[in-house]
């Protein structure tokens, strides 16, 4: 298996010199592409490396670097090696490129990312809502979206929960019993 991965890395570096290829510690091969090359790289992998199956498109929010990272997870049925194709995009006013013409199921993932991260895809304009309905605030999976503040503002709270005391300390205060030492690090201050 490790032989196969070494060979794959070697042939990928030869065939796709514009991408950096490395072997992941926990299995699989990682391939970093630029946005311009992405569709070509994916099509090449599909046609010539046997990566016929798109498992998932995932999105990572790198807030500090002001970037989104899309991870295309591909699977080869013959060699049984997973391939991660990564591409970095601008976080503000950036856009991905739709690959619906390569894999029709990419549409679902692109809709989800457009909805949850607010990242549009060229070639997949105005996608329909997938999970949320009539959402008009910041896309909720962005890291700077404060879910607690939003829920406090949007929904009602049952009175008596706002102090958010730790259950353990309330019970121990009532019954006079001491909190065991092992539980102290997990007790809310």
């Amino acid at each position, binding site marked *: 298996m490790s032989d196969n991965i070494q060979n794959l890395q070697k042939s990928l570096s030869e065939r796709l010199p514009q991408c950096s290829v490395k072997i992941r510690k926990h299995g699989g091969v990682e391939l970093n592409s630029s946005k311009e090359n992405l569709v070509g790289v994916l099509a090449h992998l599909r046609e010539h490396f046997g990566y016929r199956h798109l498992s998932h498109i995932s999105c990572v929010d790198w807030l500090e670097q002001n970037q989104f990272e899309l991870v295309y997870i591909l699977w080869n049925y013959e060699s049984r090696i997973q391939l991660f194709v990564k591409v970095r995009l601008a976080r503000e006013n950036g856009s991905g490129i739709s690959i619906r013409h390569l894999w029709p199921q990419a549409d679902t993932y692109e809709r989800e990312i457009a909805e949850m991260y607010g990242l549009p895809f060229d070639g997949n304009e105005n996608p329909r809502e997938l*999970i*949320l*309905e*009539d959402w*008009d*605030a910041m896309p*909720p999976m962005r890291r700077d*979206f404060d*879910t*607690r503040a*939003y*829920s*406090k503002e*949007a*929904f*009602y*709270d*049952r009175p008596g*929960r706002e102090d958010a005391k730790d259950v353990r300390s309330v019970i121990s205060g009532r019954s006079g019993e001491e909190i065991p030492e092992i539980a102290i690090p997990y007790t809310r201050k």
Partner: protein
Amino acid sequence: MEMNDKDTLTIVEHIKNFARRHSLFVLAYGTGCGAIEVPPTMTSRYDAERFGIVGRATPRQADVLLITGYLSVKTLKRVIRTYEQMQNPKYVIGFGSCTINGGMYWDSYNTIKVLDQYMPVDVYINGCMPRPESVISGFIKLQQLIKAGKADGWKKYQENLDWYRTNQKKVIKNWNMPDYNW
């Protein structure tokens, strides 16, 4: 509720309530994880049919609406629509801590926290999730309330419809549902 001059239930209401509490038709609808507690309640081990609790397929045939867990805003819209289609008298049972105070979804951006702000709830069953024993005990509590003539959430809904509508429209942005009037 028809009351006589001594402010107690009339004999006709007693007879009606007797019939109502012994034939609680439950709408076969579930949200969240509590829906998984309903099949064991209905089947042979706990056998809720002893108490006259039977499942029904459509809202028009049902008396009881079970809210079995968290409600996302998207589901709330469908639940309100379902509730308004049910025939009077109708009762709502809220399962688990999610419907009471949000439960483990208390800081979620997409689930409501307090169900009785949006629709009248007759009985709450606590637990996360309540076991079939608690579910049956909740139904018995509902039967007692019906017997005493206190399970009148559906009346409150009609009387305070504006208040409920305001709350509902606060979370449901695009209100494109028919307005029922009774």
